[in-house]
């Protein structure tokens, strides 16, 4: 990237059910942490990612309210809503505003509040990122689409469902040592196998748990001699919508092309990445993401997980803080959580979740069941 962006501050709240805090509260809390980390009290713009707030009847135009709550005056505000790709898209937008010369320093926040909604209402609103007229209105949701995809994957590659345990196992192994994670425990096969079925063959353990949470970054144009973590490349790719495409093709072309473009811009390739943060809102999108970016051949993601490839000390460390599955899934904030966690890993500040000698990372979030993919290469 010719005009590199540096990340000068990060912050995140715990992923949890925050009964005493509202959407705006957790957004401001994470934003304040990032501003403190950056030792910064003035920004030119505020970009806020949120996927569900408006549809749940909470807060729309969240960026304006976050800026106001922080006492930031005379700033430009943008609210970004791109389903579960909102976080990555918000960072892309902030980068573009800086590279264009329009602004110098930008606060980027991702926030989501899911716990106020009853489960069936939450599932309905999450489904609004799909095709509302042809999928949501007919009783489909991301969870049901993932179940169909898992079934198709198992049938096509002639695999046993129990192999999906290894995907959840990796996430929980890493989330167990993340103090911000919602589920800080390792997962055993017995727990996985008795997990209630939501839609065959998908069980509760194959889905990331919805949570409340917010994460934030302060970004600015990198100085020539910066030693901070920078955005080396990024890309946002959209392809034909429709849940039937990933289910029937068992591939995510948006994820593949987005990764290629981001790597190309960064001047690096997959082999240069120290670790990966991919989209794991459910086990189906998780395994297709793994295959889309080349961490496993088609049909082999589960075997690679079982072989230990994705553990912190494996050849391709993945979900280093537990991913959405163990940390918790705050849909509109997930992309920012991923980047904040990657920054900690690249700074050497990841504690027990540290990948040794990490100097580059790839982060990718997906929207509308994989029809959109936003990738960032950091280093």
């Amino acid at each position: 990237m010719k005009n590199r962006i540096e990340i000068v501050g990060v912050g995140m709240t715990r992923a949890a059910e925050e009964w005493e805090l509202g959407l705006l509260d957790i957004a401001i809390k994470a934003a304040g942490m990032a501003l403190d980390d950056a030792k910064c009290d003035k920004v030119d713009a505020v970009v806020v990612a949120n996927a569900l707030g408006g549809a749940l009847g909470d807060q729309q135009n969240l960026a304006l309210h976050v800026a106001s709550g922080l006492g930031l005056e005379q700033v430009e505000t943008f609210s970004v809503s791109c389903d579960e790709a909102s976080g990555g898209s918000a960072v892309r937008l902030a980068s573009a505003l800086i590279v264009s010369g329009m602004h110098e320093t930008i606060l980027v926040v991702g926030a989501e509040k899911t716990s106020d909604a009853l489960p069936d209402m939450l599932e309905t609103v999450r489904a609004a990122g799909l095709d509302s007229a042809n999928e949501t209105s007919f009783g489909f949701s991301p969870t049901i689409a993932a179940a169909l995809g898992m079934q198709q994957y198992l049938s096509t590659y002639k695999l046993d469902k129990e192999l999906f345990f290894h995907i959840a196992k990796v996430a929980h192994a890493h989330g167990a040592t993340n103090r911000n994670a919602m589920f800080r425990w390792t997962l055993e096969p017995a727990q996985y196998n008795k997990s209630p079925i939501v839609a065959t063959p998908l069980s509760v353990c194959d889905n990331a748990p919805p949570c409340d949470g917010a994460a934030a970054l302060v970004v600015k144009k990198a100085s020539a001699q910066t030693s901070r973590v920078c955005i080396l490349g990024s890309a946002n790719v959209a392809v034909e919508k429709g849940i039937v495409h990933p289910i029937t093709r068992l591939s995510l072309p948006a994820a593949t092309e987005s990764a290629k473009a981001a790597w190309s811009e960064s001047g690096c390739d997959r082999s240069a990445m120290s670790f990966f943060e991919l989209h794991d809102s459910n086990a189906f999108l998780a395994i297709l993401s793994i295959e889309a970016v080349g961490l496993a051949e088609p049909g082999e993601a589960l075997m690679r997980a079982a072989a230990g490839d994705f553990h912190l000390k494996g050849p391709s460390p993945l979900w280093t803080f537990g991913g959405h599955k163990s940390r918790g899934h705050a849909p509109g904030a997930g992309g920012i959580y991923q980047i904040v966690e990657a920054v900690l890993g690249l700074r050497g500040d990841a504690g027990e979740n540290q990948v040794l000698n990490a100097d580059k990372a790839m982060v990718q979030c997906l929207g509308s069941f994989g029809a959109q993919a936003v990738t960032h290469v950091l280093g």
Partner: protein
Amino acid sequence: MQIAKSWRRQPSNLRLEGTRCTACGHLAFPATIRCRQCGQAEFDVYQFTGFGEVVVSSIVYEAPRDFGEHVPYCAAVVRLEEGISIATMITDVDPEDVSPGMPVEMVTRRIAAQGDKGPILYAYKFAPLLENQ
């Protein structure tokens, strides 16, 4: 689904009508107003036959709001004989008996109701093809 939206969608929901681009022949379901293949905006109405086969199916035990009355129901991807795949429910059969390759046909059924006093959406589902067909 709102009443106006349901009314607007009647041709596709009740008759499985889509469009065929007059320039390139590309079929679309549901109907489109601009061909995603060639960019033209002139179409013939195309009546899909309503026959197809199950690609993959799932039995749903936890449904989104307004669909709880159907649980457990069979969600599926059906490939129409014209080659287009759609997400739909399979009906008139025990969900356990649905399998890939099963021949199915379009039927009109109750999809969802918005509470006790809200509108009821009727639209397509797919049922196993009768043997004499």
